């Protein structure tokens, strides 16, 4: 049974929502979670996550060496090009230090870094069994301490008068319901699965985007709050966008649609032309720019081309490799002008300078005299079979979000005095991420601001 009223209402069912619900409940509040998905598909994009980024001053059970506050800040500053709210970002970084223990005390287990962890063993802690195992633990803990979880509840409206949030309206089993609360935590994700909204921002190109996670993150609550005067942060075209296998389904393919081959390949658009330095840096530091790069190419498609020499240098994909004995026949397999691709490969091969090829370092095997250059891991593409992997933009989550303060409180301009609306997770990630991405930051934002939002919502509700 869903109660008619509660102290703290949490909208959403991913990591941020669960951290908020647990923190609010532990602070003494009655807590209800309204999760849009059913139980089997609960957890939003958290289902597809695997790790979070955390600062630490010395080696931990699951994290090597140290990753200082300053280094984390430098990494974040670099990827965002300074488009980040510095006090909030530094708050997140400092709070990330205690997050692993906080989760561990609530049953979450981490694992040592193994083969699939992309050399992040110093900066990122990996959930044992991945994001869905994390969620299973968080839900079980939340219910054990008395949080009410309601599945299949799609929130469509928050009733806010000039001074405070009062209640939400939601759809459940085909009919409308409402629930009153003293405070609300909005943790309902971005709007990347809302095709109309994406088209407003991107135009027709959005038709060719794939959504890596849940089809339910349509930004309904975000839009509802924007319409009621909530302040926003970020640009609607900014998002976490990865180049993924173009053959992936429209929604929910998650990690297995990723292709790690870009830095060992040349990437060409449908006209057979290269458009960016594939070997600029290690893949974990570059994968999140390639979604945008492909989004700007004709028809939002590109192809990574490799030869047999490097075929085993990256993790396999679930989709079959497209291969052929010659560059021309490979081009015809992927519907590309064969002479254009052959010309690109020939001029690339001619530009490659011999060096000591080493995938574990920035090996300076590079090209000279072509534009764009390839700065590392450049080898001539000359050993058949030649292989191609088609790439499309895979959107993880959008950055346009609710502006919050250091208590995770949503601001409603200067005219309002609404003090009981809080936000956590992807719906407010734009405060930290104006653009770009550091692997694992989304889950750190969810965990840190989830806790802060839950604690402050409970304080607001119980005062």
């Amino acid at each position, binding site marked *: 049974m869903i109660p008619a009223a509660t102290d703290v209402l949490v909208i959403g069912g991913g990591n941020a929502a669960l951290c908020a619900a647990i923190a609010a409940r532990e602070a003494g509040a009655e807590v209800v979670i309204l999760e849009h998905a059913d139980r*089997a*598909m609960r957890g939003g994009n958290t*289902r*597809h996550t*695997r790790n979070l980024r955390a600062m630490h001053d010395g080696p931990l059970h699951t994290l090597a060496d140290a990753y200082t506050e300053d280094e984390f800040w430098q990494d974040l500053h670099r990827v965002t090009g300074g488009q980040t709210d510095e006090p909030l970002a530094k708050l997140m970084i400092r709070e990330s230090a205690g997050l692993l223990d906080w989760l561990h005390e609530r049953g979450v*287990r981490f*694992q*040592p870094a*193994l*083969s*699939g962890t992309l050399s992040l063993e110093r900066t990122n802690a*990996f959930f*044992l*069994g*991945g*994001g*869905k*195992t994390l969620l*299973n*633990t968080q839900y*079980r803990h939340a219910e054990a301490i008395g949080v009410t979880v309601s599945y299949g509840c799609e929130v469509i409206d928050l009733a806010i008068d000039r001074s405070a949030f009062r209640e939400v309206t939601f759809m459940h089993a085909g009919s409308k319901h409402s629930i009153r609360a003293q405070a609300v935590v909005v943790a309902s994700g971005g709007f990347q699965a809302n095709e109309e909204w994406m088209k407003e921002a991107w135009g027709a190109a959005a038709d060719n985007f794939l959504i890596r996670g849940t089809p339910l993150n349509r930004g309904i609550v975000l839009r509802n709050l924007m319409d009621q005067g909530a302040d926003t942060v970020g640009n609607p075209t900014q998002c976490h966008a990865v180049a993924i296998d173009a053959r992936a*389904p429209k929604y*929910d393919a*998650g*990690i*297995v649609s*990723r292709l790690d081959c870009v830095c060992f390949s040349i990437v060409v658009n449908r006209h057979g032309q290269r458009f960016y330095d594939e070997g600029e840096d290690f893949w974990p530091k570059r994968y999140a720019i390639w979604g945008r790069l492909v989004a700007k190419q004709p028809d939002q498609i590109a192809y990574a081309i490799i030869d047999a020499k490097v075929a*085993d240098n990256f*993790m*396999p*994909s*679930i989709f079959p490799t497209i291969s052929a004995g010659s560059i021309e026949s490979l081009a015809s397999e992927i519907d590309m002008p064969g002479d254009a691709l052959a010309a690109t490969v020939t001029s690339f091969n001619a530009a490659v300078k011999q060096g000591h090829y080493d995938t574990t370092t920035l090996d300076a095997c590079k090209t000279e005299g072509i534009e764009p250059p390839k700065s590392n891991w450049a080898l001539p593409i000359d050993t058949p079979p030649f292989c191609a992997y088609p790439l499309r933009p895979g959107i993880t989550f959008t950055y346009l979000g609710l502006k919050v303060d250091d208590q995770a409180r949503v601001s409603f301009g200067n005219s309002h005095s609404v003090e009981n609306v809080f936000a956590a997770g992807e719906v407010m990630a734009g405060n930290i991420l104006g653009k770009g991405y550091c692997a694992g930051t989304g889950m750190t934002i969810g965990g840190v601001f989830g806790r802060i939002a839950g604690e402050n919502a409970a304080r607001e509700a119980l005062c």
Partner: protein
Amino acid sequence: MHGTSEQVLHEDATRAMTICNACRYCEGLCATFQAMTLKRTFAETDLDYLANLCHNCTACYHGCQYAPPHDFNLNVPKTLATLRADSYRRYAWPGFMARLFERNGLVVSIAMALSLALVLVLVFLFQDRAVLISRHVGPGAFYAVIGHNLMAAVAGATFSFSVLALLIGGRRFWRAIAPAASKPPGVGAWAKALRYAATLKYLGGEHGEGCSTADERWTNMRRYCHQFTMWGFFLCFASTCVASVWHYVIGVEAPYPFLSLPVLLGTAGGVGLLIGPAGLLWLKARSDARPADVDRYGMDYAFLASLFLVSLTGMLLLAFRETAAMGILLAVHLGFVLAFFLALPYSKFVHGIYRFAALLRFATERT
């Protein structure tokens, strides 16, 4: 020549491992995923190896973002359980007996019923009614009911054949899955594999917190029950070995006193074989059906029931061996024991051998 169904099972497993290998979120859970990451393509023998390395803890199902109702409909424990059961059939010796794995629950049950009936009928036919229902005590008391030579001949023949069939099946499996590298498993690999097997490490997962339940908890109950079962079996086996030494070397005939080594070992083992299989049956009945190959539960239930009944009748025989009920109890106990050993190479028992072989390959690749 492969049958269609076998091909389908390997195709299902290939699809599952292809998805898993691109994901690898489960690599911290157990050996199966760690072994998987060493491969990019999977031969049928690799899949048989991975299937037998899986201990069916189901943590990877409950933690899988691609499990149903996701469109990918990925169910690794179930896919591997089906392939695993099929591998018992394919590596069995002699080949024509492999069909016994097809409806194994029924087969083992029939073996139990027939053995029981056979022993009882023979005893009633050939033994004086008065002998059967009188009280016998002192050395050689059992052999007054069933002659020692007959007992030893039947047991010896059955046991020898079963061990032979098990060894040949196990060897076939090992030859199929043995690491391609030329070096055989070294001392370190054997030591590791024995430790994994003795501690039932992967019933606890790599993390040691146990198997996953339907409500996504982790619990070591299955591991504990399996420990009672496995060590119960070994203790009973040790008891039989000691008793044989006493009989043939020292010349002391059963029944042995309660505080003698064979009876102490047998009693401890018997208790283990009551607690363990009963616990495993209870857990299995309450287990999550979604990640299980429920159609083949018959094999597991029959094997566990068979172990439990061997032990139960043995314990009853021990309790009432000085009464007039001993004759019947002995016949019933020997009936269940006969059935157990007759069915041994064509029962769930083989999982111990195949899992150990898989662990040995895993340990070899790891060292």
